[in-house]
């Protein structure tokens, strides 16, 4: 219990990923959904870095850098979309943005 190993980091990563997934599925404010996606990406980064440490391969950390790049691009485009939708429809509730729903 007190000796922290690879399993502890992977379990923490799984817990964090599931919290993020739950938020992304269950919340209605689209900014919160974006935050939950960030939590999920961070959870993946934790397991990548833990693998890199415990298996002795630096490639995991290289992948984490790519994940961060994609996360930054995703937040920039996502917030632009949110602001654009808010300007046109006056809401950030995903239930009310239903123009492409039939």
């Amino acid at each position, binding site marked *: 219990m*007190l*000796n*922290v*190993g*690879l*399993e*502890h*980091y*992977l*379990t*923490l990563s*799984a817990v*964090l990923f*599931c*919290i*993020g997934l*739950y*938020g992304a*599925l*269950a*919340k*209605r*404010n689209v*900014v*919160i959904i*974006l*935050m*939950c996606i*960030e*939590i999920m990406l961070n959870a993946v*980064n*934790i397991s990548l*870095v*833990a693998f*890199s*440490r*415990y*298996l*002795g391969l*630096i490639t995991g*950390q*290289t992948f*984490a*850098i*790519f994940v*961060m*790049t*994609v*996360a*930054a*691009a995703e*937040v*920039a*485009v996502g*917030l*632009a979309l*949110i*602001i*654009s939708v*808010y300007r046109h429809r006056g809401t950030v509730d995903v239930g009310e943005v239903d123009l492409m729903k039939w």
Partner: protein
Amino acid sequence: MALSIIFWILAVVIVGAALGVVLLRNVFRAALLLILSFLGIAGLFVILGADFLAAVQILIYVGAISVLLLMGIMLTREQQHGSPFGRLRWPAAVVVAALLVTIVMAVTGTPWSVGILAAPEPTTEAIANSLFSLERGFVLPFEIASVLLLAAVVGAIVIVREK
């Protein structure tokens, strides 16, 4: 031993802050808790010996992405509504709990072949070699990532520009 105690403290802080992001109704407090969670993850990177990534985590997530998210919250004032749960609240909880149990069983059931841990070394040079070495490097993905960032930033400007 000390590292274990730090790990548990950081784990509690990270998971608590992430739960706060999901469960709080106030969007602004959720964003502040998200920043706390990012900082805790930077601490995890430090005790995992990933010094470069810890610095990058603070620069990009705590510095840039959090500011973007706070700007987004301020530009879309929804304080009276907050962040309510949708119709999927309980079905999603069941599905996510099942997924969590599955992942944890897979993690604890797999016999990982972990060797003796080497002492942590500075990783910046190793990451640079891994990215840019000519035989097994990631030069092309690196260039694609930079083009992706440029396209994302230009696209964001085009999307939010007033007609």
